[in-house]
C-alpha cells in the first residue's frame, strides 16, 4: 500500500487539467529510454504484514538494555516523558523553523536547549545541534582551524578512536594534518590550530585539562574538549578549564541507543567565536507588538545563504533528538542529573572491584575514572563478548589494539544494581574458567 489519496476520479480530472494522458505521460520530457525501469524490490506489504515482518527481524536481535556496553553510547534509563513529549506530532512533522510565526514551539525549545548546553559546558554560546559527537568534534576542529588560520590538529590518543577516524576524514578533505599525542605532556607541534582532548577519555579517565589548554593557547591553538554530558553534572565544565570549544555526544541524555543513532551532537564555544559556529542558532527577539519571540539568527554563516563561503555545509541537524536531550535535562534537573552521574560512578567503581577480583583480569584505565573503565582480559575481547551474549548479557566493549591487547571497556549507569554487577562478575568468571 502507499499513502496517496488519489481516487480514480481525482486522477482523471487532474490529468485532464494538466494535459497529460496518464501518469507516465508526466515524464514525457525525459529521455524515454530511462523512464519506468523495472525494479527488483520485494512485493509490497500491508501495514499488518510489515509489522509482523519487522517483529520477526527484531526477534533476531538481543536487547542491550541495562547492559554494560559503552564507548560513547550507554544504557541510561529514558524517562517515559521524554519520548512522550518529543514525539508530539507537531514537533515530529515540522521542518526547520524558517517561518518563525509558525514555529515558536520549536524555536523556544531550541533556545532553551542552547541554554542548557551552555550551562553544562560552562561556555556562553551553544548551537542548535550537530549530527553526533564525532561530527561535532570534526566541525569543532574545523572551526578552530578557521579561527586560528592553521592547518594542523593535535589530538590525544585517548580520544575515542572512531571520533579520531572521523576527524581524519574531514581533515584529509581540506588537506589539514592530524597529529596524535600520546600524553598530555607531549609538546604541541608547530602550526597547530587545534588541540583536542576527551574528558572522561575513551578509557574512562578523568582529566584536568587546564595545563593542556594553556599550552594550546600558548601555541596559538584553540583547545577543543570532547565531553560526556552526564559527567558534567559532577565534573568541572570545559569552559572552566580553558576550552574554547566543547563538543560531545548527546545520546546519554534521553536518547535510545538505537544501534548507534540517530542521536545528537552538541557544540558550545567562547562568545567571540559565535560567528564561526556551524549550524543553526536561535535568538530571542520581539515581534511587531513587542511580544517576546524566537527566530533563527546569524544565518549568514549557513550554506543556504553563504553557499561556498558558509562555515559548514550542515543543513538538517538533529533537532528532534536534541529536543529529547532538553526534555531529559529538564525532567532530571540538576539534582537528578547529579544522582544519575553519582550512581553511575559508584556502580562503575564497584564493578571494577568485583571484576579485578577475577583471576586474569586487571584494570588498565588510569585513575581517576568516571563511569567506564578498561580491563585486560585473559582472552580475546570479541570471544568473551560473544560468550557473554550467549548468556544474555550485553557487555565487553572491544578496545582497538592500539591501546593494548585484549582490552575491553565496561560502562555502568544508574540503572545497574549490585545484583547486576554480581551477575556479570559471575558470568564472566564462568566464561573465563
Amino acid at each position, binding site marked *: 500500500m502507499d*499513502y496517496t489519496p488519489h481516487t480514480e476520479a481525482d486522477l482523471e480530472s487532474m490529468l485532464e487539467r494538466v494535459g497529460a494522458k496518464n501518469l507516465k505521460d508526466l515524464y514525457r520530457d525525459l529521455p524515454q529510454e530511462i523512464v519506468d525501469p523495472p525494479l527488483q524490490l520485494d512485493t*509490497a506489504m500491508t501495514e499488518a504484514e510489515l509489522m509482523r515482518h519487522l517483529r520477526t527481524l527484531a526477534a533476531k536481535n538481543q536487547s542491550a538494555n541495562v547492559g554494560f556496553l559503552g564507548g560513547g553510547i550507554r544504557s541510561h534509563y529514558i524517562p517515559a516523558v521524554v519520548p512522550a513529549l518529543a514525539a508530539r506530532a507537531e514537533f515530529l512533522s515540522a521542518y526547520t523553523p524558517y517561518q518563525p510565526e509558525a514555529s515558536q514551539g520549536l524555536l523556544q525549545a531550541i533556545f532553551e536547549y542552547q541554554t542548557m548546553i551552555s550551562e553544562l559546558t560552562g561556555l556562553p554560546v551553544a548551537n542548535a545541534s550537530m549530527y553526533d559527537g564525532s561530527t561535532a568534534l570534526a566541525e569543532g576542529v574545523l572551526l578552530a582551524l578557521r579561527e586560528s588560520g592553521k592547518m594542523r590538529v593535535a589530538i590525544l590518543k585517548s580520544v575515542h578512536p572512531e571520533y579520531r577516524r572521523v576527524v581524519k576524514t574531514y581533515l584529509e578533505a581540506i588537506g589539514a594534518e592530524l597529529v596524535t599525542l600520546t600524553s598530555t605532556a607531549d609538546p604541541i607541534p608547530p602550526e597547530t590550530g587545534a588541540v583536542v582532548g576527551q574528558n572522561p577519555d575513551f578509557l574512562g579517565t578523568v582529566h584536568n585539562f587546564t595545563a593542556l589548554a594553556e599550552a594550546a593557547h600558548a601555541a596559538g591553538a584553540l583547545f577543543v574538549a570532547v565531553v560526556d554530558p552526564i559527567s558534567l553534572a559532577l565534573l568541572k565544565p570545559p569552559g572552566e578549564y580553558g576550552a574554547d570549544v566543547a563538543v560531545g555526544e548527546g545520546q546519554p541524555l534521553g536518547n535510545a541507543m538505537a544501534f548507534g543513532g540517530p542521536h545528537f551532537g552538541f557544540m558550545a564555544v567562547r562568545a567571540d567565536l559565535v560567528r564561526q559556529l556551524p549550524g543553526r542558532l536561535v535568538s530571542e527577539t520581539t515581534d511587531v507588538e513587542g511580544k517576546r519571540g524566537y527566530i533563527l539568527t546569524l544565518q549568514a554563516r549557513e550554506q543556504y545563504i553563504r553557499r561556498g563561503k558558509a562555515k559548514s555545509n550542515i543543513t538538517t541537524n538533529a533537532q528532534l533528538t536534541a529536543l529529547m536531550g532538553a526534555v531529559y535535562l529538564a525532567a532530571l534537573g540538576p539534582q537528578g542529573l547529579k544522582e544519575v552521574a553519582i550512581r553511575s560512578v559508584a556502580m562503575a567503581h564497584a564493578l571494577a572491584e568485583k571484576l579485578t577480583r577475577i583471576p586474569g583480569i586487571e584494570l588498565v584505565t588510569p585513575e581517576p575514572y568516571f563511569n567506564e573503565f578498561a580491563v585486560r582480559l585473559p582472552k580475546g575481547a570479541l570471544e568473551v563478548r560473544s560468550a557473554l551474549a550467549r548468556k544474555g548479557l550485553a557487555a565487553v566493549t572491544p578496545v582497538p589494539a592500539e591501546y593494548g591487547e585484549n582490552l575491553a571497556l565496561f560502562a555502568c549507569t544508574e540503572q545497574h544494581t549490585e545484583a547486576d554487577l554480581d551477575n556479570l562478575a559471575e558470568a564472566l568468571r564462568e566464561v573465563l574458567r
Partner: protein
Amino acid sequence: VESPLIFEKSVPGRRGITPPKAPEVDLAALLGSDNLRAEPPKLPEVDELTLVRHYTGLSRRQMGVDTHFYPLGSCTMKYNPKVHEAAVGLFADLHPYQAPEVVQGALQLMYELQRDLSEITGMDATTLQPAAGAHGELTGILIIRAYHKSRGEHEQRRVVLVPDSAHGSNPATASMAGYTVKEIASSPDGEVDLEALKTELGPHVAAIMLTNPNTLGLFERKILAMAQAAHRVGAQLYYDGANLNAVMGMARPGDMGFDVVHLNLHKTFTVPHGGGGPGSGPVGVKAHLAPFLPVPQVVKNGETYALDYDLPHSIGQVRSFYGNFGALVRAYAYIKMLGEEGIKKSAALAVLNANYLKELLKEQGYRIPYDRTCMHEFVAQPPEGIRTLDVAKGLLELGFHPPTVYFPLIVKEALMVEPTETESKETLEAFARAAGELLKKDKSWLEAAPYSTPVRRLDEVQANRKPKLRWNPGE
C-alpha cells in the same frame, strides 16, 4: 509573559524524575577534588506535570505536516506514516558494539536497505552512514576525491562545477572538501546551459554536482549529454538527491549517467523532519567508486550478516557507528510497504499534484516563470507589486504553511511550491483558493500579516545585530 521559558518556571528544589538512589560516595576521592565542578549547572527545576504542560504547550505553538498543509519546496514535506514510529520502537535497545551474532535482524535490515536503495537509484553500492543530506554530499565528494587520487589525478582536478540554481549545500560541500567551486549559469529555459557546461569542462574538473529535477522543478532534459560530456573529460557526475521524490523509481540517477547519488531519507523516504533532523543521507555509487565507500559496509556471508571494516581504499569513517539507524528503519519500512508499484506511483502523483497546483495558482493570478510540465515542484511569483514574503505571511494567517520563499536565487520573489503526493486534490484546491484570496486583500492587511499566530512578524535585524542566544538568570 505568554510563553514563559522552562527556566522561568523553575523553582529551587523542585524535582521531576527521580533516578534510582545514588549511594553515598566520596566524589573527591573517586574523581579528584580538582576535577569537580563548584556550581551545579543551572538546569530547570520543575515537577513532571510542569514539564509536560511546558512541552505540550510548546507543541501547540508549532505547525507541522500533521496539522497543516506544508508545501515547502525542495523539502518534500510528505506524510510520515505513524507505523514507522512503532517500527523504530522494535529496535530501540540495540547497542552498536553488541556482538554481530545477536544483532542479525538489524544487520539484515541494513543490508536489504543498502540493496533496495541501490536498486531505486540505479547504483551498484550504497553506504548508510551519512547522517543527513549535506553529510551525504560531503561523503560523495570525498569518494570522488579518493577516486581521482587513486588515479593520480587529484592534484590536477581542483574544480567542482555547480549550477547557479543549486542548493547552497552543494558549493558549501565542495568547499569543505577543499575544492574550488565554479558556478554554471542556467539557460533561459531554466536548465543547465549544456554549452556553457562544456566550456567549463576539462581535465581540471573533479565533479559536476547536479540536482535533477533541478530546484526550479524542471527535469534537465539534456542529462544524458551532460553525463557523456563529463565522463569524456574524466569528471564524475554527482546527483543531489534532494529532489529525488519526483522520479523515485521512475527514472534512476544511475541510468541518467550519475556516478554518485546521495539520498535524503527524511525527504523522499518519509523519515520525519523533526523540526530540522535527524535525517539520514545514504550515498550510492557506481561500481568504480565502491572501493572508496566509508567503513563499515554491511555484508552478507552465506546466511550471516556482518560489518566489513576491511576496505583498504575507503575514505574512512564519516560518522561514528553505522549511521542514523532509526531513520534507516523508517525508510526500510516505507520501501517494503510501497514496493515497486507504490514507489513509482508515489513519484508520479507527486508530479501530478505539482502540475495541478501550478495550474490552479496560475488561474489565481500567480506568475509561473518556467511554465512547462514541472516535476514534483514548481516556482511561482506573486503578481507584480506584491511581495513573496507578504504572501507567505498571509498564507500563515489563512492556515497554511507557506512554500519556500526567495529560492532559488535566480528567480526574483520566488515561491517554490512542493505539495507532495500525500496531499489530496481538495487540499490543493483549498490552498490555491487561499493564495488567490490573498491577492484580493488590502496591501496593508497583507504587509502586517499574520495576526493570529502565537507571535507576529519578528524583528530579525535585532536578532542578528545583538543575538541573544541563551536565557540568563535575573534578566
